[in-house]
């Protein structure tokens, strides 16, 4: 008899028939019917109508049938909560069954039924099962606590299950320990600040003991948990490492990788001169190499992790280059990863071998792989100076093959080699020029044009070559257009006599016939430069270029540290922090390496979004929108020369961020939405191939072009909160933004400090706001005129207006911001003090005040206390006036000063307030009346902030 027949029932009236069979007296028939139901369920048919009939079969001593019914219950209980209750009795009874397998089955299944009413009944049986004599029941119950916590966290805490779970860490059975550790780790993740997994030397010792005895999976749970512990000193660190190292010989790759994670993390604490440190380093290499003989999928996971490990500690695998050589039969994903690691390990010692391999790869079939191999040759040239010559000749050989994509890729990398070793390999230009016609990819065309422009004085027919590109100027991509513009200007500066016509042609094409703002702006800059001061133009355009760095594609150090703490997990596969792909609170915690964090005291990062005071505007990052978009955008932003066309919104993804994108995405990307307030993405954007220092000297002369000045007035004493970090560097590939809001001379300003904590230069800054409660929007582009070099900070002031689109936010003063630079687009949200929005003409006439006060219904009145304020009523009054809260009248009744105040928001909403100050009493009372009572809470916060500062 086979079960496959159940998959083929498609006839009509099936449900009715099944119903009859389910209610049959014959056991066999019943079982058959349940099997059919499960098969239908699997293929996606709705069989929920059979719920009561299936549940009726639950009372059986046939375990197989029981399991099937339970499976059904888990699937449909949620949709039929009332009927699911019918099952409770059987569950409770089964939890008392003498057979431990049945007890465990009942408690396991009950935890999977997410119906509140059932959950209530689960508590008592669960409590018993957690203390069951049989370890099989206990290990199942341990996981069940995590299930219950997922449904109702409060219930688990109230019932004291967490303590019972903690006790299980000391259980005599290793599997119970492992499951308890897994459950606690999961629960702890959603309570970042609770000290749930109270790891101390005693518990660590228990875990290490269990580690030797439990199943392979249990070992993984325990090792992953151990990785979160911070040893007190280097001795403890060493002793844990010693007890973890034997795991490196486990046949299960996941055990090995988790052990590597613990060792990589704890190694940070060991002094480098310790003998043991060296021993440990040596011990790490062989198991990592062994991982490469696993199945391809695991190899891929291993390689992604090795990529991280090699960046963090290159010494571990520096002698193992050979094992990363690509095998003919490797799947493409393994090949690409191996190639990456080969480049990272390339050094003077092994470069000959690496090059020979790369040359082989360049003749393979897979286009992506071949391209990457060609690019790798270029990277080798830049990394190992001694090999540059050989690399160039290899690349020339490849160009001779005339395989189109190989030629184009080779030209792109040769451009970089020219940048790195100027005036050395220019003899090959002739060969490159021969291939001009075959280039059809923008990147290759742009690279070739750059080369022609850069070496215009050595290429006799440079003008002809560039002119040939000019013919189809408007059909070229922006990248090529920009490059062509610059190249012709360079040519003109080098050979002014013959090329005047050409340069005028390109300038007019760029400025008059183009609707691309980037191109237009660059055209105007050149035009003006050339017409006002050709000497300065020469200095700017032909300035010496900074050398390009040797290592490319390195992961930014803070992110790398975090990823090292996530070795073996998805984060290490994606090379992204968990917050980038995990929803909700889970995984938002950042992990850092202990030793190198500088202070060494806090392992869990403080910027985990822990709520500071509400008025302090906590740096809430919006991962769900930002990173999703970031991913999308990443694809098109990689060539830093210009921004590409906006990517089509992917329909497959659930885009929570559509609002933000509404009209703004295009302009952020430097598209052609001329009128958008956030325009200006391209203003400060020198093309990558141009001198990076280009815009610095120019900026002074450009004020008339940009005419936005910043509009700084004298501070009026309006309250402005201290700067807080809005966007931590960890979230934004090294860009840190801290900032505050201020109102100066009637202009609302966003004052930011941008800090570049990454390793590469940042350019092309732009900013955009999401719709918000008061229509705040940038009044001009973000003025970051010079590129931001690593470790540099810059202060930026952005004037705001309140004419943007309006959408009510929660909290009301929440502002979601998108900032773009040449690397990516980042999203964060911040809260502005509502006092920024109090306008200068907010003083109401007395009569009007009285009338309005009476007119606003009492329901709209709210009252707040401000504690610990030691100002006199007059001092308060003048302080508040600085922030446009005007005192209209003052009354003194029985030693209590009553100040009547008014203020007006930018959108015309009036607020009336009564501030009561009693001499000698530090507690003030504020009564607020407003027609829009939702603002009261924010206003109160502002009162408190202003008065206390």
């Amino acid at each position, binding site marked *: 008899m086979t079960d496959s027949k159940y*998959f083929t029932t498609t006839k009509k009236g099936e449900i009715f028939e099944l119903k009859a069979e389910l209610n049959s007296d014959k056991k066999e028939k019943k079982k058959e019917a349940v099997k059919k139901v499960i098969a239908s369920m699997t293929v996606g048919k709705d069989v929920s109508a059979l719920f009561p009939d299936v549940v009726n079969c639950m009372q059986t001593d046939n375990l197989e049938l029981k399991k099937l019914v339970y499976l059904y219950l888990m699937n449909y209980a949620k949709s039929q909560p009332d009927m699911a209750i019918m099952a409770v009795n059987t569950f409770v009874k089964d939890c008392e069954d003498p*057979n431990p397998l049945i007890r465990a089955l009942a408690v396991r299944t009950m935890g999977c039924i997410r119906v509140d009413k059932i959950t209530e009944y689960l508590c008592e049986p669960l409590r018993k099962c957690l203390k069951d004599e049989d370890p099989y029941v206990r290990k199942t119950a341990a996981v069940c606590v995590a299930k219950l916590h997922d449904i109702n966290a409060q219930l688990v805490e109230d019932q004291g299950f967490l303590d019972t779970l903690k006790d299980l860490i000391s259980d005599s059975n*290793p599997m119970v320990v492992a499951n308890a550790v897994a459950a606690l780790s999961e629960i702890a993740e959603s309570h970042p600040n609770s000290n749930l997994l109270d790891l101390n030397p005693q518990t660590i010792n228990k875990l290490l003991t269990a580690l030797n005895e439990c199943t392979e999976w249990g070992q*993984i749970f325990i090792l992953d948990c151990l990785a979160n512990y911070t040893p007190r000193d280097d001795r403890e660190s060493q002793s844990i490492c010693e007890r973890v190292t034997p795991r490196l*010989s486990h046949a299960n790759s996941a055990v090995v990788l988790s052990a590597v994670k613990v060792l990589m993390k704890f190694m940070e604490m060991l002094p480098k001169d310790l003998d043991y440190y060296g021993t440990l380093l040596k011990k790490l290499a062989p198991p990592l190499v062994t991982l490469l003989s696993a199945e391809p999928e695991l190899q891929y996971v291993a390689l992604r992790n090795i990529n991280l490990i090699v960046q963090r500690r290159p010494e571990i695998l520096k002698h193992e280059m050979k094992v990363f050589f690509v095998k003919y039969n490797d799947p493409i994903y393994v090949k690409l990863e191996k190639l990456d690691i080969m480049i990272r390990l390339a050094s003077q010692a092994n470069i000959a071998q690496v090059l020979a391999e790369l040359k082989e790869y360049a003749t393979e079939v897979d286009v992506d792989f071949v391209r990457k191999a060609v690019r790798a040759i270029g990277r080798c040239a830049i990394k190992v100076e001694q090999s540059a010559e050989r690399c160039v000749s290899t690349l020339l050989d490849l160009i001779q093959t005339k395989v189109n994509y190989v030629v184009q890729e080779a030209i792109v990398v040769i451009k970089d080699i020219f940048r790195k070793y100027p005036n050395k390999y220019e003899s090959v230009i002739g060969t490159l020029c021969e291939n001009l016609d075959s280039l059809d990819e923008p990147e290759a065309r742009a690279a070739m044009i750059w080369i022609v422009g850069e070496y215009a004085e050595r290429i006799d027919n440079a003008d002809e070559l560039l002119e040939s590109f000019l013919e189809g100027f408007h059909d070229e991509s922006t990248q090529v257009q920009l490059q062509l513009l610059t190249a012709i200007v360079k040519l003109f500066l080098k050979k002014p006599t013959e090329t005047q016509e050409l340069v005028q042609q390109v300038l007019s094409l760029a400025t008059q016939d183009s609707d691309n703002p980037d191109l237009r702006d660059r055209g105007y800059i050149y035009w003006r430069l050339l017409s006002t001061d050709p000497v300065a133009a020469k200095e700017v355009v032909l300035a010496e270029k900074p050398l390009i760095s040797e290592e490319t594609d390195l992961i930014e150090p803070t992110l790398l540290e975090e990823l090292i703490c996530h070795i073996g997990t998805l984060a290490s596969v994606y090379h992204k922090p968990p917050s980038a792909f995990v929803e909700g609170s889970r995984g938002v915690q950042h992990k850092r390496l202990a030793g190198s964090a500088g202070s060494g005291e806090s392992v869990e990062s403080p910027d985990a979004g822990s709520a500071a005071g509400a008025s302090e505007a906590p740096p809430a990052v919006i991962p769900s929108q930002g990173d999703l978009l970031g991913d999308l955008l990443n694809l098109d932003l990689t060539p830093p020369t210009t921004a590409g066309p906006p990517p089509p919104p992917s329909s497959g993804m659930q885009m929570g961020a559509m609002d933000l994108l509404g009209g703004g995405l295009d302009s952020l990307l430097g598209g052609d939405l001329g009128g958008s307030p956030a325009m200006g993405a391209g203003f400060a954007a020198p093309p990558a191939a141009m001198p990076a220092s280009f815009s610095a000297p120019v900026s002074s002369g450009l004020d008339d072009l940009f005419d936005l000045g910043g509009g700084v007035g004298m501070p009026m004493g309006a309250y402005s909160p201290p700067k807080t970090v809005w966007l931590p560097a960890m979230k934004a590939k090294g860009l840190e933004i801290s900032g505050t809001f201020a109102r100066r001379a009637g202009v609302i300003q966003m004052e930011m400090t941008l800090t570049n904590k990454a390793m590469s230069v940042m350019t092309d800054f732009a900013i955009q706001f999401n719709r918000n409660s008061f229509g705040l929007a940038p009044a001009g582009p973000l003025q970051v005129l010079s590129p931001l070099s690593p470790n540099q900070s810059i202060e930026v002031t952005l004037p705001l207006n309140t004419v943007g689109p309006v959408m009510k936010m929660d909290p009301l003063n929440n502002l979601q911001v998108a900032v773009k630079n040449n690397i990516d687009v980042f999203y964060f949200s911040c809260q502005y003090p509502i006092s920024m929005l109090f306008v200068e003409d907010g003083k109401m006439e007395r009569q009007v005040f009285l009338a309005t006060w009476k007119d606003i219904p009492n329901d709209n009145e709210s009252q707040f206390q401000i504690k610990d304020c030691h100002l006199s009523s007059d001092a308060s009054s003048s302080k508040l006036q600085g922030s446009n809260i005007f005192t209209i009248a003052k009354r003194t009744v029985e030693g209590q000063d009553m100040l009547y105040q008014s203020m007006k928001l930018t959108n015309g909403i009036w607020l009336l307030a009564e501030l009561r100050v009693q001499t000698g009493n530090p507690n003030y009372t504020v009564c607020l009346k407003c027609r829009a009572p939702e603002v009261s809470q924010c206003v109160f916060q502002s009162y408190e902030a202003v008065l206390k500062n």
Partner: protein
Amino acid sequence: MIGGLFIYNHKGEVLISRVYRDDIGRNAVDAFRVNVIHARQQVRSPVTNIARTSFFHVKRSNIWLAAVTKQNVNAAMVFEFLYKMCDVMTAYFGKISEENIKNNFVLIYELLDEILDFGYPQNSETGALKTFITQQGIKGQTKEEQSQITSQVTGQIGWRREGIKYRRNELFLDVLESVNLLMSPQGQVLSAHVSGRVVMKSYLSGMPECKFGMNDKIVIDKQGKGGASDDPGKSGKQSIAIDDCTFHQCVRLSKFDSERSISFIPPDGEYELMRYRTTKDIILPFRVIPLVREVGRTKLEVKVVIKSNFKPSLLAQKIEVRIPTPLNTSGVQVICMKGKAKYKASENAIVWKIKRMAGMKESQISAEIELLPTNDKKKWARPPISMNFEVPFAPSGLKVRYLKVFESKLNYSDHDVIKWVRYIGRSGIYETRC
């Protein structure tokens, strides 16, 4: 943790779907089908992220297994689990095929319920599972039997059940090695390594404690220093340096780490005790000497000599030499002293097969390759000559020194156990550039 597990056929129809976590919806099933199974291009990554849901997938013949999650799970663990899942299914019903999966879907659900709880892998040793997931119901068990099952499933020795009895206590050890080589035309070794496995089949009663010993250099040197070795000169020469090894979970790793001794209680039946890798002092069973001469533009003369390099008393089997030919080959004439040789145009190679060859022998093939004239400037890349063979010894030089069996509770001793040891060396990627 794992949020759900789906099994599909090659068309993308769901055969098995089990959801463990609330964050995985039914649409995840379809998302994978549309984005991966029905995708036009080949798989570019074994982990696919679709709408913030990550899919880990492996393929066995034409069946897809996909584990789904929305959390930052341990990726290595998920793949290890999927492989384990395949092993368990194979152990229960043989080959993983659509038919077998449909025929056993109830069993698979039962297994999935047992080995994955809330997405956490539980005991997945087939030995243990087979004691209580039988598809026959476990009604008739006594209380003792039940608690025996649970203690085994949760116990320290989850891979072996109590009370196994054999009339004849017997064990088989296979040392299986694959030797990999890349050699330059001049006979210089560019890279060589052996990856080996020790596979054990044990039919032993009770809970035997085993100790496995081999000529590991570290162990031999240690003994040599202690003066215990009776013939240090000889054993020192025969020991081998192992670069790295991994063990089945039954081996006590901490003991290996501290004393380098391999002790364990074996699972019943066949399993892989250890894997290892060596790179030093490898015996290369064959040497390939190529000679390629271009005679004009339309002719190539190829001569290949193979020399066997092991004891004359041993016989190598299934020898195959593959000599690549240029793409514009029009005809080939082959002469060989031994075996059969054929030009296979579809594979662009001359395939030379020899059934058996003793050690310290030599054989030769010569071929004349006619070429069509082409105007292709690109030179022929000359792929390496590859070789396949099987030899009855371990190219790494690994020797099993002992496998002792102790079972204190039952009345049989180490001497009563019948032990068989076999060495097989096979070619991995064995290439000589020409």
